[in-house]
């Protein structure tokens, strides 16, 4: 286990997000963090990548406290793709991906052969070779997200953290991005940790699910074992049916709409004509 956090107290601005949160990231697997807005999943991911300093508790990376590394050393061991991404004006795909080599580069030297190889490889596995000279701001949503993933791949780390990599993408682009991450996990042995909003996508692609609510880990494990209607009620406060995906066998959550639930239970509804 290369990355873990124990007894973390997490504050965001002045809001307390979690007081005692622990997580162990399984190596070589795809892990998904799910939970409602404000449950602390993004904050936890940021703490694991040292973008946020916990008020208490330890994040351990490769056997050492993450704070004992320099910023650049952390970047050589783990890559994080944040939720909000800013592409510099008129940057091309290749230029963007080349920025991923920053942790390996010297102060003012140009790109070395190994840098170029890493860039080529990232462009290839993300299917961006033909789009390399295209300005990033002219790409479609899915292409753009693949360009960003190519950037963190060029970083060359085996640990990759992604904060909602599929948000704002339509369903075909979501699949495109998640299939790419799955492929990287299988073919390259990358450890993937991501925050996802879509429970069904998380169940489909995760080896391990972490379900959070109010800064507490309510369940963790293989989605086939942990995803139950009770868990969905505990985490999201909604009723649901849990079905099995017809082809993959992964569990699927069908929410039960309940806008009139309180009406059904109210005394008015029980008035029966005599």
């Amino acid at each position, binding site marked *: 286990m290369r990355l873990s956090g124990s007894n973390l107290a997490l504050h965001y601005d002045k809001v307390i997000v979690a007081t005692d949160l622990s997580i162990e990231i399984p190596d070589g697997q795809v892990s998904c963090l799910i939970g409602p807005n404000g449950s602390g999943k993004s904050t936890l991911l*940021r703490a694991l*990548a*040292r*973008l946020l300093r916990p008020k208490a508790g330890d994040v351990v990376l490769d056997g050492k406290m993450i704070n004992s590394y*320099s*910023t*650049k*050393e*952390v*970047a*050589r061991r783990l*890559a*994080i*793709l*944040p939720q*909000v*991404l*800013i*592409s*510099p*004006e*008129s*940057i*091309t795909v290749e*230029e963007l991906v080349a*920025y*991923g080599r*920053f*942790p390996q*580069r010297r*102060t*003012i030297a*140009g790109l070395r052969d190994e840098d170029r190889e890493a860039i080529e490889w990232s462009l290839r596995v993300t299917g961006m070779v033909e789009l390399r*000279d*295209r*300005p*990033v*701001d*002219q*790409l*479609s*949503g899915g*292409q*753009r*997200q693949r360009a*960003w993933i190519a950037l*963190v791949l060029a*970083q060359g780390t085996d640990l990759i953290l992604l904060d909602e990599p599929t*948000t*704002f*993408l339509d369903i075909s682009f979501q699949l495109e991005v998640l299939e790419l991450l799955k492929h990287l996990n299988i073919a390259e042995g990358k450890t993937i940790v991501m925050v996802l909003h879509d429970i069904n996508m998380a169940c489909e692609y995760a080896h391990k699910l972490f379900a959070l609510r109010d800064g507490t880990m309510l369940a963790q494990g293989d989605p086939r074992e942990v995803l139950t209607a009770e868990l969905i009620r505990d985490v999201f406060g909604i009723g649901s049916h849990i079905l099995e995906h017809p082809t993959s066998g992964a569990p699927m959550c069908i929410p039960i709409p309940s806008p009139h639930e309180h009406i059904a239970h109210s005394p008015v509804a029980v008035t029966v004509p005599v």
Partner: protein
Amino acid sequence: MTATPLAAPAPAVRTAARRPALVIGTTFGLCLLVAFGTMGLGAVRVPQPHAIEALFGHGTPDQIRIIRDFELPRILIALLVGGSLAIAGAVIQGVIRNPLAAPDIIGVTKGAGLGAVILLLAYPTTAVAYLPVAAFVGGVTAMVIVYVVSYSGGGTTVVRLALVGIAVSALCEAMIRYVMIDRQQGIGTALVWLTGSLAGVDMSAVYQFVPWVAILLPLTVLYVHKLDVLGLGDDLAEGLGVAVERTRRITLLLAVLLASATVAVAGTLSFIGLIAPHMARRLVGPRHAVLLPAAAGIGTLILLIADAIGRGANPPIELPAGMVTAFIGAPYFVYLLSRKL
């Protein structure tokens, strides 16, 4: 700047095959061409090709003196000042991630101007030697005020920064006027200088400015890769291994010092720090290793042309170069605003 992911890609397929070396080479070639071509355009005309010959020591003593003592320093100062302003603008725009953040927009130039005017008019005897220091103090103070006031919720926005910058600039401007009314002797020089002018610079101005460039420029170059990564946003930059806050503070300070140094030598030249880096970015892309030299070349070129127009338009009266750059820059600024906000 584009926040991703957003929908709607532009329909046109534009590939950006760039040749930074070609652009930088061409720009500096044009600089040489303009520098030599406009030599001898001053109050006392030295027609070509006598002007160039005079530079190399052939011609009447008067011609040689005019070219070597008056025209050559202006060209060198145009190179140093135009280049420095453009580099300062490129760095500030990169750090603040805002194409409108130039030294003159965010209040640095006016702040430096205020510092210098206070010194010029209050202590006219000691002025020249301490002018860079006064400009530094004014420029850095203005920058800090603008940054702190416009900083909210973990960052600044285009609009906040531009608005606070305009407010601080206006405040500095008002204080400059107050100082000028209060201390009227030497007001003429101060006025010309405030518009930004290369008139009357001599080799001592060049020698005064060179050390600042020699110190600040190499330090800035050390940060080219970090500046690149900083453009990706704080989180990703940190994730890629850049200590974001420290890098931002150091590079901003370097840029503000560079811009303030130009104010000490050539007054408050407007718009070069805004438009030169912007044009350079369109030509060579956002990588600072090529952006900075390209911007420096374009900044030099703009200032050389502006100064030449100022000298040649209505001799023997010289128009300050800063007035000409404002004439060129203002429409470009309006064009930028129409695209960016």
